[in-house]
Structure formats: structure tokens, C-alpha cells
């Protein structure tokens, strides 16, 4: 028991950070599962927006590009559907949860979170565009690219953003040793 107490005392900042992150993800999970997913509006908005922006990116290279709600057709027969699991919402929440839990100032979070969200959305748009090109040029490897590419790219971007936040968050490293007290002058013994 005293060992556990001593561990948490030593790793207070680490424990606090992990507990905060777990609480944020749990709260988001419940909010999403119970309200946002059944409601559907957030997922629909994000999916249709990503589809629309992906269509805009592809249009110069595929003049026949058509966006129909969540579906993007690069040309007849070559299209992808952006389902709820593919719109990047979970990646966005993963990113925000860390930035809120990890030590930093709120003033910096105010600009870092929108910047990170934009980076993740742009990543998803590029991913969807790449998937459409793969679907057109190399359809035989579409399944593998869809499964691994998303995982790799999303986590790489999120990891990079987290490292960036740890450096620019604006807070001293948690549990940093306090500054050393000013040196106390040694008393001079009279008659020594």
C-alpha cells in the first residue's frame, strides 16, 4: 500500500495525465455512443464534408469527378463511400483527448487544437484521394492499402502532433525538480 502511495507521489504528473486522458476518452466514448452516433448529424456532416473536399482535390486530375453525399466518383465505376468509421472522427477525438490531458496552457491549446484538427482532416482528404487513385490504377491492392495506409498515416500524424504539443504546450515538464534555492552564505566564525 505504501509502495503504491510512494509510486503515485513520485509519478503524480504521469498518473494525473493518464487518469485525465482515460476520463476524457471514456466521456467522449459515452457521448458518442449514446447521443452523437444515433443522432448521426455530426458523422454525416464530417463524411459529406470530407467527400466534398476530396472531390475538389481530385477534380483537376479527374475531370469527371462527382460527389454524391458521402460517395465520391473519380470516374464511372471508380468510387469510394466514406462511412462513419472512415471520416476521421475517432482520430480527431484521440488527438484532442491527449492535448487536453497533457500539461500545457489553455491559450496555446486554443490555437493548437484547431490547427491539429485541420491537419488531421487534410490527412484524411489526402488519404481518400490516394485511395481513389489506387482504386483506379491498382485496384488489386486496394484492400491492403485501405487497411494499412489509414492506420499508418493517421497514427503517424497524431503521434507527430502529440510530440509537437509536448514541445510547444507551454508548460514546464511536469514533476520538474524545483529551482535550487539561492546559496546560503557560510557563517564566518569569529576568531577562526
Amino acid at each position, binding site marked *: 500500500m505504501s509502495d503504491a502511495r510512494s509510486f503515485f507521489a*513520485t*509519478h503524480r*504528473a*504521469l498518473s494525473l*495525465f*493518464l487518469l485525465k*486522458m*482515460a476520463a476524457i*476518452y*471514456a466521456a*467522449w*466514448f459515452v457521448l458518442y*455512443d449514446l447521443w452523437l452516433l444515433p443522432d448521426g448529424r455530426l458523422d454525416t456532416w464530417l463524411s459529406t464534408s470530407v467527400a466534398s473536399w476530396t472531390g475538389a482535390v481530385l477534380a483537376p486530375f479527374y475531370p469527371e469527378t462527382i460527389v454524391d453525399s458521402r460517395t465520391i466518383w473519380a470516374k464511372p465505376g471508380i468510387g469510394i463511400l466514406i462511412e462513419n468509421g472512415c471520416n476521421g472522427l*475517432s482520430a480527431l477525438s*484521440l488527438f484532442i*483527448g*491527449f492535448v487536453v490531458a497533457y*500539461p500545457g496552457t489553455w491559450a496555446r491549446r486554443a490555437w493548437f487544437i484547431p490547427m491539429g484538427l485541420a491537419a488531421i482532416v487534410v490527412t484524411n482528404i489526402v488519404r481518400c484521394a490516394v485511395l481513389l487513385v489506387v482504386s483506379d490504377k491498382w485496384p488489386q491492392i486496394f484492400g491492403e492499402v485501405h487497411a*494499412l495506409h489509414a*492506420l*499508418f498515416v493517421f*497514427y503517424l500524424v*497524431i*503521434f507527430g502532433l*502529440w*510530440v509537437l504539443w*509536448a*514541445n510547444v504546450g507551454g508548460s514546464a*515538464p*511536469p*514533476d*520538474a*525538480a524545483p529551482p*535550487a*534555492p539561492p546559496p546560503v552564505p557560510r557563517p564566518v566564525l569569529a576568531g577562526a
Partner: protein
Amino acid sequence: MPEAESKTSPFGRVISRHPRLWGALFAMLLLGAYVYGVRPAREWTAAHIAAPLFRSIGTPRARAFTIVRPSDYVPGNQPEAVFAVETGRLQAGFAAGQAAPDVIREAVRAGEGVAYWVAPVGVLFLLPAMFLVFVFPTRPFWAVLLAYHLVVGALSLAVFAVGLGWFAPAFGLYLFTRTYLTESVSLVVPLLLYLAARGLGPLAAASRPARIP
């Protein structure tokens, strides 16, 4: 002794000659170990631990489900997963001439009448573990990550069993462990170690020597 050979980092000895090359080599070795060791172990876990465990639960709630592994029907089809499909749905599918994997696929797509457990230590372990081996070739941080994934995997097995046998909302908790918990472990553990090696983050303080007044 040349100075380069005695270099140390906050995490111990470092390789002074071609560290990136050694890191890349060890990462490739880990990839090989994953393909030929961990992946078969995941399939074995699903077949010989998870599926029998789920089948052994004899509560009325559990009897409403049939435990199915698609790879029992089609070799190589999701061998690391175990599905709990509502028995009525499975029988209706069979009566309609559908094969088990097709019934499962439709149930998953519809998002009802099915839940599935996936063996831990998947790609979400492999990628960050390769990163750790590449950056810290002399330190077994990948093993720390593996331990965390095994703990999460054991937790997910227990939670899924509770959901199957007694308490439906535990399936929701299982989903949380499979998604956010696994993703957090996969990203946070390497991140904290990476930051600590650079004197940043919550772990850095623990690795610094105590200051004696």
C-alpha cells in the same frame, strides 16, 4: 577507450556506430518475429483460449449466441477473431443458404446481432514497437509495449466474456478497450519514452537523479 564507445543516454548505453542502421535491422527482425511468431500466436489464442472460453459460458444469455470463427469455414479468414452471433440470425442465414462468414459479414455491416473479440498485439502493437526498436535499439522498450498490450488483451477477454454471459453493456466497454484504450497504449507509451529520452514529459522527472539539498 574512445569516448564514443562509452556514451550513455538517460536510458543507458547507446550504439555509437551506425545506430540508425542497427535500429532498422532490429526493426526488421521484429517484423519477422511478428509475422512468424506473434501472428500465429494470436491465431492460436483466438482458437484455443478465447473461443473455448466463450463456448464454456453456460448462462441463459450466452446460450442465445453461437461462437463462430470464420476461419473454421474459410481458411485464413480473420483467424485472429472470434464472433458471437445471435443463434437465431445464424440459423436464419443457414436456412437461406448463406455460409457462416456471409451471415457474420452482414451482421457486422448492419451493426446488430453480433459482437467480436480480436486477439491483442495486432498492427497497433507492431508499428509503435518497430518505432521503439528503431529509436532505442539497445533497450527492450518494445517488450514494455508488448506487456501493456497483453494486459489490455487480457482485460478485453474478461470484459467480452462478461458481455457475452451476463451483462450486455460490457460489450460497449469491450469496444472501448479495443479502440481508445488500445490506441492510447500504442501511442502514449512510445511517446512518453521518446519524450523522456529527450528530458521532456512526465517520465523525464522519474529518470532524473534526485537533487540532494
